[in-house]
Each structure stands twice: as C-alpha cells, then as structure tokens.
C-alpha cells in the first residue's frame, strides 16, 4: 500500500479500531464504511468498536513459495478477531507444525514491509499466552 493508502487506515490499523453495523452486527475493519457488506444497509449506522487484540485461527496454510522478502516456511492464517472481523495474519513465534484450526492467537505489532525506505507497521499474530496481554493496544 502506498503512503496515502496506509494513512487512510492509520488509526484503525495502529489501534485496532473497527465499526459495527447496528443493524446486523457485522464489523468493518480496517476500512471505515458507510454501507454494510453483510446486510446491505445503505447508509448503515455504524458504531465504533475498540477491537480486542486477539482471536482464533479459522484456517491456515504454511507458505513454502513466496516472493523474495518473506521467511519461509511461513504459517499464514485467516484469523477471526474476537469482535468479529476476519483478517489475514502471519503467525510468529509459532512453529508451522504447531498451528491448529481453532488456535487462540493475539495481535503482535511488527514491521510489515518498507515503502520508499519507510517501515510500515501492522499486526501479525502469535499464540495467545495466558500472561497479561502485551499485544495490540
């Protein structure tokens, strides 16, 4: 994503902020919406949600073939955050053979890539520990 694209979702991305459709409960993230992708309400009534920085692995793969710049094998998951949004997430601090469907994971701030020399940050996920959460915000 280019700098303006990242800037437009800066708040949602950095602080895990979503928007819940008051009609059907679907949560928009990371983009701010005026229509609901699930119930088609247009305009929809959205309320801001501070997303809990953890969720569950809905499914996963272990990436063996990727463009340069990725460490492989890389476990990659569809994560459903506790408040509903579904996102793609790279798993860190987790051996590929230890990943399971249904596994609890927590958001972990990381450098995602560099664009014109500037690092762009977002969250990866790691197995959720029972210790006080340090992930997310």
């Amino acid at each position, binding site marked *: *994503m280019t700098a303006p694209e990242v800037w437009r979702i800066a708040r949602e*991305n950095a602080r895990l902020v979503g928007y819940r459709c008051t009609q059907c409960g679907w949560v928009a993230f990371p983009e701010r919406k005026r229509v609901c992708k699930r119930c088609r309400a247009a305009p929809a009534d959205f309320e801001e949600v501070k997303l809990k920085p953890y969720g569950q692995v809905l499914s996963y*793969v*272990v990436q*063996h073939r990727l*463009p340069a710049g990725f460490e492989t094998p890389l476990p990659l998951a*569809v994560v459903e955050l506790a408040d509903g949004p579904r*996102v793609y997430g790279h798993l860190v601090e987790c051996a590929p053979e230890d990943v399971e469907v249904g596994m609890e994971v927590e958001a972990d701030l990381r450098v*995602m890539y560099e*664009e014109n020399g500037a690092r762009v940050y977002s969250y990866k996920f790691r197995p959720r520990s029972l210790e006080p959460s340090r992930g997310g915000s």
Partner: protein
Amino acid sequence: MAEGLRGKAAIVGAGMIRFGELYDRSLEDMIEGAYLNALQSVDKGLDPQEIEAAWLGTVYPVGGNSGVVLGHATGLFEIPITRVENACATGSDAFRQACLAVASGVYDLVLVVGAEKMHDEPGGLIQRADVKKLWMGRGVTMPAFFGLRATAYMEKYGISREQIALVSVKNHKNGARYPYAHLKVECSLEDVLNASYVSYPLGLYDCCPVTDGAAALLVCSAKIAKRYTDDPVYVLGSGLATESFVRGGDLTSFPATKRAAQQAYEMAGITPEDVDVAEIHDCFSITELISYEDLGFAEPGRGARLLEEGIVELEGEKPINPSGGLLAKGHPLGATGVAQLVELYEQLRGEAGPVQVKDPEIALQHNIGIGRFATGSVGCVHILGREP
C-alpha cells in the same frame, strides 16, 4: 420475472491453440491462432465481415488496457471491441457479455476471445502476489487462498490429503489425452502426495501450471444459428455472483459459485442431475472438490465420493474436466473460461476425440476468480445444450 437467456444465443464456431509455455508466440499471435481456428471450425463457413462486435477477456495488460489489441490480432477494426477483466472468471464473463448482447437483439453475430500471456514475465502468479498490503492479501498467493480452504475443508469433514489428491490424478490422466493440454503427463497418487509443498496442505501437483494460451468462440442469435451449422450449441443459462469471506460463513464452500449456479440452473430450467459433462474450475485440486458440492453434484463434505466411485472419470456417469482441467490443460487466466466452453462445444457435438464422453446433451462450465487482494471471489456458471 425477467426472461433470461435460454435458447437465445448459440455457439457456431470454436477454436483454441494448444496451451503451454509459448515463448515464441506473442499475445497477438495466440489470439490470431485461436480466432483462425474458430473461423475454420464453422461448418458452413463464416465471413469475418459478418462479425458485428467482439469481446476480449484478458487479465494482464500485456496488450494494453483496451480491447484494441484484439483488432490488431484479428484485423477486426471498426466494430465495437470490449475488454473484459474479472479475475479467473474473465473468459467466461467475456462470453457472458457476448451472450447478453446477442440475446438483447442488438447484434446477430459476435466474437469472444479469451487470451493470456503469462510467460512474458518470470515467476507466474506467486511472484505477482501482493506483498505490500495490510490485513488483506499480504503474501496470500493463490495457492494460499485455496490452501486455506483445503485446511478448513479437511478439518470440518475429516477429509484426507489423499482424497483431495484424487482430483489431480484424474485430471492429469485426462489431460494426457487432450490434444490442447499444456501438461500431458499422468501422475500417481504417490506423485501428488510426495511432491514438495507450495502452500501446505497443497503440493506442486495440487496446483495448476503457469500457462500461455488463447481460445475463441463465435456466438450468434439462436434464430440464425443454422445458417452456420446444423449442429449449433445453445446457451441455456448463465450466472455470475460475487462474495467475500469477510462477511461470514465457513471456508469450505464458495457462495459465489452456489449463487451463480442457482441463477444458471433456474435460467436453464434444469437441475444438477441433468448435467452430463462439466468443465469446472480446478485451479487447485481442492477447488474442484469443493465445486462439486457448490454446483450441487454432491452433498457438502461428500465430494470425494464422486472420485472414489469413478463417477467423475471420463467413462463415469458425470465426467468432469475431460480436458484435464486447469491442472493439466493449464490456466491462462483470461483464456480459461473460453477454452472450457470450446471443449464443451466439441463434447456436445461429439467432436472431442480422445476425451469424448458418451452422448452428452447438457454441459456445465464454471469458473472462480479471486479478487480484491484475496478477500473476494467471483463465480461464473454457464449451461450449454444441444437443444435450445
């Protein structure tokens, strides 16, 4: 209630080139080849001057961002040419647009070409994966997108990698016999299972190759079809839908396929049981398995039975992907849907040679495309028949 498409459009010519790593042929060369083959396939002949409009389905802007490249490839300047792009459903959507145009009565005879030059840039789709994305699509290659479905499907239904691998074995067996296929090698179950992983649980043989290719169809109003052939193939139904998993639902099915199939079946007035032969989207082994279920050929979680019981083999009751599918024939994105229709045209006319199935009356074609950084899909389904 809208009238639908049934019996309004017909295919009277179909041609393609052999798919493969075509380093010595440009995008325009390939389009030209498919076009000439389609023209020459018309039983009673067809004068290029009769073609009133054309649609080009292609994804990469190898020939620029317009349909003009089709004019350069075919000489068909001055008529309307529209470039269509809809991920891996690009070719079938181009065909769909042509059918709608003919059915509307605006044109009598039109050309549809699907083409893709994959090998002018190295690395295939994996190297083109999005790497600078947040939350969506970062490092989510196509093998990953479908591998995520495979993991979810195996988990939910207790299906093994072996059962999924049967798709690859069947399709490579068919592809080895199909004249236009890119890969003409059979593979064993062990070959599939022992191959290196691309995106676990999917290995190399679970994935389609990187392929160049083009295919073309001549579509006309059903009313004048017999002018070109005594044996036209009629379009009975067409459906297209989109979806995103971010809306909810589990990851073991493609709702866009279900919706598109529902639209097409209703328009055609048939049920899944009526389908005699099908070319369905098998960009990856798991895709075909899930699509059996989404298209109504099997109950959810029971798709593997069609393979285990031989039902979908070339000689089975419901042969699926006699061409070898995308896994063996190859998947030049924009060409794929059109090539599937070319093959089904030949099947319905009894001209499919080494992969001819027994006396089909009704055929189904299906694509799934992935879009918007691996967060959305498009499903497209067509139903063809020997009678309008």
